């Protein structure tokens, strides 16, 4: 089973690297619109980038869960065959998705730009994962720690919301543009909630294992946050579509639910103060470091997320790069740091001497990654403010093209920072890949 987990994780690291390369290529269009316009057309590069990095998150979380269930929690996996089929299905889907983009046979829905038919094997893959997960855990674990709940919830809801992303093919939804676009973004909001369940579950798992303290995964407070996350997964989606003319109560509800997240923020601040007084040095150095980075990124991104969930503020930030700062900040700053921490945790168990030999490279890579991300994130926020001023606070707005020109300086720095993130990613993931690939064959 280790082998299958390692293939999942190695492929995910590869996806992270390739996805970041696609991102930096697509980004060139922001500063040099005519550069290789016909080769790296944005309407193809963007889906390449988006699908590949989503692949990173999904594959890495999945590989980690398989590994933790069997190698750390020492459960007997219900079926190795199912896991192998799951892996093969996902690999085939990845190939099919790339072919779909390269040949231009696109479904053209945001985030799901590939030919819609590929959703069927993806869905099937999740069913296999679900069967394996629940058959393994339900029979062997009595009193579930929170991470098992989170992983289970993520998998179960993922199936439903994946199906929901395809509702547009049903005429009932398709014929009503507002219904269509709202359900579309409802499903995306919830899907992000699903993978957050997988990834945050992993974070809690790691914290409890690194600190060797199962209470982290069992306390009342932990479960309270789990339910809060679940409520947000189910009901919080509509803050993405405040400005779409749906029924007002949908928007009211989303506002209320979104604001519950302030509790999370306050709790983080309290915990943070608490932990400052305690000196902690652990063996899992890089893993721990990445989780500390997560802590920081959760904090700054949550502030932005909470602010832009207030309709009054959302009115001005929606449709600007501030939204991108939010999505990039959370997927790179939070999801990616947690998942890298997870890969470090696993690689460290497998071959700690190899990683120790590369400590310097890893540490420098870590800082390049985080600092570049900071610059990247700030550029997006500033660019967003600039665009918002153009949209709402200018009497005689200039043309779109002129506004784009005004954003150019930010976009140059943004692109440069994007390359920084790529370099950081390369520096930390190369040693990891080499550990995993070597171990895979033993």
């Amino acid at each position, binding site marked *: 089973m280790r082998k299958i987990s390692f293939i999942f994780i190695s492929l995910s690291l590869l996806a992270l690297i390739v996805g970041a390369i696609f991102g930096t290529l697509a980004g060139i269009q922001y500063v040099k619109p005519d550069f290789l316009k016909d080769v790296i057309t*944005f*309407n*193809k590069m963007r889906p390449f980038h988006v699908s590949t990095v989503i692949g990173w998150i999904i594959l890495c979380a999945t590989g980690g869960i398989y590994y933790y269930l069997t190698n750390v929690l020492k459960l007997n996996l219900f079926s190795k065959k199912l896991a192998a089929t799951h892996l093969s299905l996902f690999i085939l889907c990845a190939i099919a998705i790339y072919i779909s983009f390269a040949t231009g046979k696109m479904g053209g829905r945001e985030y799901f730009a590939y030919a819609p038919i590929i959703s069927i094997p993806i869905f099937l893959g999740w069913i296999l994962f679900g069967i394996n997960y629940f058959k393994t855990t339900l029979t062997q674990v009595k009193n579930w720690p929170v991470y098992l709940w989170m992983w289970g919830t993520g998998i179960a809801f993922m199936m439903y919301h994946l199906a929901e992303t395809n509702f547009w093919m049903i005429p009932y939804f398709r014929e009503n*543009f507002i*219904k269509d676009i709202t359900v579309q973004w409802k499903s995306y909001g919830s899907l992000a909630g699903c993978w957050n369940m997988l990834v945050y579950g992993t974070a809690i798992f790691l914290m409890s294992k690194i600190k060797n303290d199962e209470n982290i995964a069992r306390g009342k407070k932990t479960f309270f946050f789990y339910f809060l996350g679940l409520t947000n997964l189910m009901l919080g989606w509509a803050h993405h579509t405040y400005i779409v*003319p749906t029924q007002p109560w949908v928007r009211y509800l989303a506002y209320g639910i979104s604001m519950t997240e302030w509790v999370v923020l306050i709790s983080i601040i309290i915990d943070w103060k608490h932990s400052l007084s305690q000196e902690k040095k652990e063996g899992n150095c890089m893993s721990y470091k990445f989780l500390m980075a997560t802590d920081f990124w959760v904090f700054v991104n949550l502030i932005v997320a909470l602010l832009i969930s207030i309709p009054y503020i959302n009115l001005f930030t929606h449709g*600007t790069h501030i939204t991108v700062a939010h999505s990039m900040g959370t997927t790179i700053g939070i999801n990616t740091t947690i998942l890298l921490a997870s890969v470090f945790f696993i690689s460290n168990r497998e071959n700690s001497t190899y990683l120790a030999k590369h400590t310097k490279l890893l540490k420098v890579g870590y800082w390049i990654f985080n600092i570049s991300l900071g610059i990247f994130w700030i550029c997006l926020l500033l660019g967003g403010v600039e665009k918002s001023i153009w949209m709402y606070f200018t009497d005689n707005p200039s043309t779109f093209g002129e506004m784009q020109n005004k954003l150019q300086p930010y976009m140059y720095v943004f692109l440069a920072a994007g390359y920084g993130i790529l370099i950081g990613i390369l520096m930390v993931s190369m040693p990891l890949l080499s550990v995993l690939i070597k171990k895979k064959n033993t």
Partner: protein
Amino acid sequence: MTVLVVIFVVYNSIIYTQGTSNNTPLMSEQAIKGEKLYQENNCTACHQFYGLGGYLGPDLTNVISAKNKGAEYVKAFLNSGVKTMPKFNFTEEEKEAIAQFLTEVDQTGHYPIVEADKKASGWVDMKYKNQ
């Protein structure tokens, strides 16, 4: 557990049937054809409706009713290859379909929302079309 499932089912059904409805008439066959072209060419990578989509190009929600723009303007744009926009090869018929799609999207509402009633509670009441 059962309670949760029931809540989930009821909530989703209400959202699908009522929460997301709107008084705009259903899309015509021609508009759906246009939407299909919009999707197949992945216009959403660069364009937005209601601010949702990629940011390399402008939002298209109200491009039809905007001052000095409109269906003819849109049709002229499609095969022009201006700036980053790819040079498409749409036939006259396809251009018509896309313009029809954009026209019907335009009828569903306003974006950006410049006329909104902002409340101190952080709430925003917005103006709907067709009501």
